[in-house]
């Protein structure tokens, strides 16, 4: 992948008075990616997005879009278009006039504009809504109009600022899939800002996780989930159990891990993060689905431990058990799918826990 990234952010700092919103951010986004900026409120992700859009200028550092430096170039001259969190649909204009708003500046005939608008509306499943006025639309419909309005401009990058946060759960889940499919069919780079890690995981090709103005990790959803670079990222994405552990150098560059709660295991060199010294390890992580309750006597796993079930939360398709493992004060969460014939384990039951070398997450 040696082509120029569509967005190149180098060493960007942004301060608002005394508050440092972004502290030295470096990021490269490839063309055609669905890229998400993920983080808790106040982490700077929206500031970064607005900087790409042109509504904020960096205090220092450079933003380069499509190879062109964007310093001093105002928002209305950049090859980006934004979908705002509040949608910002012009209340005094019809849907058609909203979607065609930006086209009025381009030298196109009225017929051409009308055609583009209709194509865009069809793309977002709003055929025939052209004559409606803005206040007749539901939240979900307004969101689609905002999207169509951005897409009709054929920008190089579409920026989305928490576009789904105002929708109810079912609609949001539906839109997540639709947006993803839309992006893939159009092929334009999408940059999404969200605080919902599930949303980022579902929709993105790559995700940048931000905490307090700094990028913690940039990776694909799978890498982010299975190999979070530190504990903070690990607990932000999904649910992670943390257990104390000690390590010593093993054969062939591997590690010998001793986890009081679970047992001992050898980690291969290949699964070991670069530069991680054995002596520096004091905690490891285990995802809830990487631990199994071994129901039958005959069930075997690579490694085994024991524990007592203290509580169970039933979610229909899954059950989340709180298990008391040996040598550990906190409870460990184990998730089990409720497959056919599988019973829910009652509180107080002694269980055997199965796990393996693959279950362990090491932090750099």
């Amino acid at each position, binding site marked *: 992948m040696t082509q120029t990234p569509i967005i190149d952010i180098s060493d960007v700092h942004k301060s608002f008075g005394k508050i440092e919103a972004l502290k030295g951010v470096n990021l490269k986004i490839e063309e055609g990616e669905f890229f998400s900026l993920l983080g808790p409120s106040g982490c700077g992700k929206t500031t970064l997005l607005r900087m790409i859009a042109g509504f904020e200028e960096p205090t220092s550092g450079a933003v380069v879009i499509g190879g062109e430096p964007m310093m001093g170039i105002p*928002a209305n001259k950049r090859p980006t278009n934004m979908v705002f969190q509040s949608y*910002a649909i012009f209340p005094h204009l019809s849907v058609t006039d909203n979607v065609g708003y930006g086209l009025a*500046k381009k030298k196109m005939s009225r017929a051409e504009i009308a055609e583009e608008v209709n194509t865009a509306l069809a793309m977002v499943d709003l055929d025939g809504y052209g004559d409606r006025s803005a*206040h007749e639309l539901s939240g979900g419909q307004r969101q689609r109009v905002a999207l169509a309005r951005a897409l009709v401009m054929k920008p190089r990058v579409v920026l989305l600022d928490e576009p789904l946060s105002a929708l109810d759960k079912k609609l949001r889940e539906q839109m997540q899939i639709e947006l993803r499919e839309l992006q893939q069919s159009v092929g334009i780079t999408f940059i999404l800002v969200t605080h919902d890690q599930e949303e980022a995981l579902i929709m993105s090709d790559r995700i940048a996780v931000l905490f307090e103005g700094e990028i913690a990790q940039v990776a694909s959803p799978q890498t982010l989930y299975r190999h979070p670079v530190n504990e903070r990222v690990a607990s932000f994405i999904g649910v992670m159990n943390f257990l104390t552990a000690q390590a010593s150098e093993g054969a062939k560059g591997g590690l010998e891990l001793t986890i009081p709660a679970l047992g001992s295991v050898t980690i291969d060199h290949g699964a070991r993060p670069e530069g991680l010294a054995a002596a520096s390890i004091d905690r490891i992580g285990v995802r809830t689905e990487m631990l199994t309750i071994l129901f039958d006597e005959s069930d075997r796993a690579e490694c085994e431990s024991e524990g007592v079930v203290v509580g169970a939360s039933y979610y229909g398709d899954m059950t989340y058990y709180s298990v008391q493992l040996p040598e550990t004060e906190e409870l460990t969460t184990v998730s089990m799918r409720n497959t056919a014939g599988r019973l829910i384990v009652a509180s107080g039951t002694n269980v055997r826990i199965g796990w393996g070398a693959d279950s362990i997450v090491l932090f750099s």
Partner: protein
Amino acid sequence: MRLTRFLSKNWLLSYASLYVAFLYAPVILLPLFAFNDSTIIAFPIKGFTTKWFTVLFESTALHQAVKNSMIVGVVTAVLSTILGTCAARAMVRFGFPLKRGIVSFIMLPLVLPEIIVAVALLVLLMQLGFSLSIWTVIGGHVLICVPFSVAILSSAFQGLDRNLEEASLDLGETGFGTFRRVIFPLILPGVISSLLITFTISLDEFSIAFFLTGTEVTLPVYIWSQLRFPAKLPSVMALGTILLVLSVLLLVLGEWFRRRSAKQQGLDPASGGGFMR
């Protein structure tokens, strides 16, 4: 008596009714005696006539005063609305040094007694050697109307979502284009409301006009000159009735526009007393 019992229990309601009657008392008199067939403004009522209105139509001095008031009113309305729009937008959208002081100063005419304003302007004009005319009256009126315009329009600007401006820029529109296509249409009801209210204020304004008028008098100053002649009183009543009806109509229109603007932006139209802050 049942009535007295009712009144003492609901004393607040009785008080309120009496108070409202007190408020409306003088005003009811206007149409009452405008149509009264008598030159004396007193009871008993003599009979119905429209001759006082006819007298009005025949008076050239009155026509001239009306014309002058119209000119002053329209120019005042336009100028104060333009200045008020600038100030309101600056206040709501931007932060700049000395903002609070500057804004308080622009709004100051609201709390100054009109005579002070009139006298001060008179002094300045005397010193600069300007003669008094319709334009000096307009100058004074704009000064006291701008705060009202600012109040109305800042309410309109506050209802404007900042994202709408950003969306317009994001879609490639210039700053001026954004004003023309997005901002102005959305504040238009506020603009109209401001025009109507400042016009009405100018129409009724007496103190400043009295001090700053030249030979071409405005309507209130004309009325003042008529008040010493008892024979003219009924026609003054007639004139007052017309002015009252006109003012109420303008006021209703202004309120209607304000509500429309609120609805268009998705706010509750019943909230707020409109222009009174």
